[in-house]
């Protein structure tokens, strides 16, 4: 049942306008920095809740002559993005000002007033969330591309936020590779549009609307559709960090501020997965869709294996988490590409779980840097004694991402294994299980090295002894490592994510209503099996 509503407009306009106000005014008024971001996102979370409520009641919300359309899948993404965005803002309120003090001396081009930096940070964060919500609410091929490109621009500026050599390199690589990728997606979208526009009887119909294209998808020339799907997988796969188009991902995650790394893995790469889900499944009714399923399964399996093998050899904690994201996004895309109810459900469930768990891990990594002053795993150890809450949060994240029960990712991965096997892709299921085992090994090892034992590396230069003797330099607290638990504002967000991860693991049915709605949205396009 469709109904006109202002909510599809508000869900992205509110954070976008707050972002613009923060950028414009925040440099002069501090209350328009973090606190406006908090207030704007609080309103956005409420709006996303109202949207979810309407969708669960069976409504599809539309606006602007159906160019905005919020169904179950959109609602799921918007709730997730708003919630994680809120947690990241709360975390950043305490974290970012301290990190700026450390990073400022390495900034290229001379000092910039702190208020300008902070207003830019929160403004861009809000703009990104607005554009993300727009991507999830739009029903237009044109605005899907435009909003996706705008999310790339906003996040590129956030990746280079510290404006030092490493972050500029990472930001340049991210912007260049994702822009090239999104141009591939533009080619795919253009081919889809042209194929639809060339069909008789489509004059006067909105063939730029995704729903209208879906109605005529079965009639489109098969070869053209296959070519378009290849472009779309390459294009949106680049945005999603799917191997082998993932080259931007490790550097961007490593050099961005830690809350932004959480944003990248938690939300940004999911935009690419969402766009793929919206577009390639349009052609599921085509007789040759099986070829697309196999193609997607091959790409996804390659991403799983490449990602986790690269993660295993990393000493940099953030790069390890980044490569893990390359691996985990393979699970999501494999599920979405299978085309069955179980596969799509498992893919979307893993999308939620990975967003929550990876955000938790990156925020915990930030807390580890706050406590120890380093992100090198070989230099860490004994965290549970100095910062037990941070250690616990990291441990939960590490066990959860491995897919161990009772955490939520166990259920989503198991669903995906079953779905792949049921579809007849036993080889894909075996690769997914094998990757899961490697993920457990990688993260259990990392958690052990970080949380237990003696602190390594730092002892060699006497910092550990200096910390024990109480010598502290308040100005460079983070560089030396505070050697004590992080403030409440920093661990609160992590605690919320821990509760959600454990809660969804113990009670997976909590997510069922919205996940079912989202799955049905995609499955409505599929032929009856």
């Amino acid at each position, binding site marked *: 049942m469709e109904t006109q509503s202002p909510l599809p407009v508000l869900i992205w306009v509110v954070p976008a306008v707050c972002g613009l106000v923060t950028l414009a005014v925040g440099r002069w008024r501090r209350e328009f920095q973090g606190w406006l971001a908090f207030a704007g996102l609080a309103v956005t979370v409420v709006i996303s809740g109202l949207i979810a409520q309407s969708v669960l009641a069976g409504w599809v919300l539309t606006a602007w002559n159906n160019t905005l359309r919020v169904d179950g899948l959109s609602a799921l993404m918007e709730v997730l993005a708003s919630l994680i965005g809120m947690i990241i803002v709360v975390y950043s309120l305490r974290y970012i000002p301290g990190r700026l003090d450390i990073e400022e001396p390495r900034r*290229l081009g001379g000092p910039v007033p702190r208020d300008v930096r902070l207003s830019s940070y929160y403004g861009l964060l809000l703009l990104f969330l607005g554009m993300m919500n727009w991507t999830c609410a739009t029903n237009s091929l044109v605005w899907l*591309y435009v909003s996706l*490109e705008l999310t790339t621009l906003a996040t590129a500026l956030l990746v280079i936020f510290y404006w030092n*050599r490493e972050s500029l*390199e990472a930001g340049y690589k991210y912007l*260049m590779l994702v822009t*090239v990728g999104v*141009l591939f997606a533009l080619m795919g979208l*253009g081919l889809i549009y042209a194929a639809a526009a060339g069909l008789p009887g489509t004059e006067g119909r909105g063939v730029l609307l995704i729903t209208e294209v879906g109605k005529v998808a079965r009639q489109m*020339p098969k070869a053209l559709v296959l070519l378009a799907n290849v472009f779309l997988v390459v294009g949106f796969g680049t945005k999603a960090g799917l191997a082998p188009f993932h080259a931007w991902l490790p550097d961007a995650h490593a050099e961005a501020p830690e809350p932004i790394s959480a944003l990248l893995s938690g939300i940004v790469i999911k935009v690419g997965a969402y766009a793929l889900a919206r577009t390639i499944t349009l052609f599921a009714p085509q007789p040759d869709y099986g070829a697309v399923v196999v193609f997607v399964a091959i790409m996804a399996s390659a991403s799983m294996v490449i990602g986790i093998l690269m993660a295993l050899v990393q000493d940099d904690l953030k790069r390890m988490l980044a490569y893990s994201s390359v691996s985990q996004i393979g699970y999501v895309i494999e599920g979405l590409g299978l085309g069955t109810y179980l596969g799509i459900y498992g893919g979307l469930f893993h999308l939620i779980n990975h967003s929550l768990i990876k955000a938790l891990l990156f925020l915990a990594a930030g807390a580890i840097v706050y406590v120890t002053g380093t992100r090198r795993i070989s230099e860490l150890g004994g965290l549970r004694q100095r910062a037990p809450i941070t250690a616990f949060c990291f441990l939960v994240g590490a066990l959860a991402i491995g897919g161990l029960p009772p955490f939520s990712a166990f259920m989503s991965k198991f669903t995906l294994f079953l779905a792949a096997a049921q579809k007849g892709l036993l080889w894909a299921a075996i690769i997914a299980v094998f990757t899961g085992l490697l993920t457990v090994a990688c993260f259990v090892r990392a958690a052990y090295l970080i949380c237990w034992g003696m602190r390594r590396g730092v002892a060699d230069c006497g910092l550990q002894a200096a910390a024990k003797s109480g010598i502290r330099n308040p100005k460079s607290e983070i560089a030396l490592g505070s050697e004590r638990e992080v403030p409440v504002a920093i661990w609160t967000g992590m605690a919320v994510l821990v509760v959600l991860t454990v809660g969804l693991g113990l009670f997976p049915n909590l997510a069922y209503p919205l996940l079912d709605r989202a799955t049905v949205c995609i499955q409505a396009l599929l032929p009856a099996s």
Partner: protein
Amino acid sequence: MEGTVGTLMYLHLLASVLAAEWRNLRSATWALVAQSATLALILGVLGWQWGVPAMFLWAVWAVATKAVLIPWLLFRALRILPDAEVEPLAGFRAPWAVTVLLVLAVSRLLFALVGWLGSSVAAVQGALALALTVFVLGLYVCTIRRDVIKIVIGVLLLENGAHLTLAVLAPARWETAYLGIFTNVVVAAWLLIYIARVVYEAIGTTDTLVLSQLRR
């Protein structure tokens, strides 16, 4: 592929090769201006042939952004950045010949591939093959060139190839112009150029391989 559009397509491809291969970045930017201008002319002619006024709007927009604004940004950057392109991975020894051969081979291959796409594109097989060749040329430039400015030119070739493909496949619909006008990488290009300037002022090079060595 005959007539005015055919001639313009060949000129467009020639300008694309010049933009891709000219070592002097100012000259390459002028070639990009010519390439974008031929794209705008193609859009205008298609609009006239099919009676779609929106295509004229797209042609004007293409001139404003692709032939004026983006080259202006490039020329501004080249006041500070060096004119000479950083030597690409394959060297400068026989790049022109390689690129021309690549373009010829790819266009023949794509002509056959487009034929496989079936009767729906039979009428525009040649034009579509050339449009996809420009796209592939842009990808080639982005892949093997080391100079940031030349890579930005490669991104713009990719975009123009995508837009030309769109125009060739669906010239009779106003929605084509709508899609073309709003899908523009002007801001991304500006940001890439801006980052290139900052990095050059910091480390004195536009070589992307040196850029990747900035990491500790």
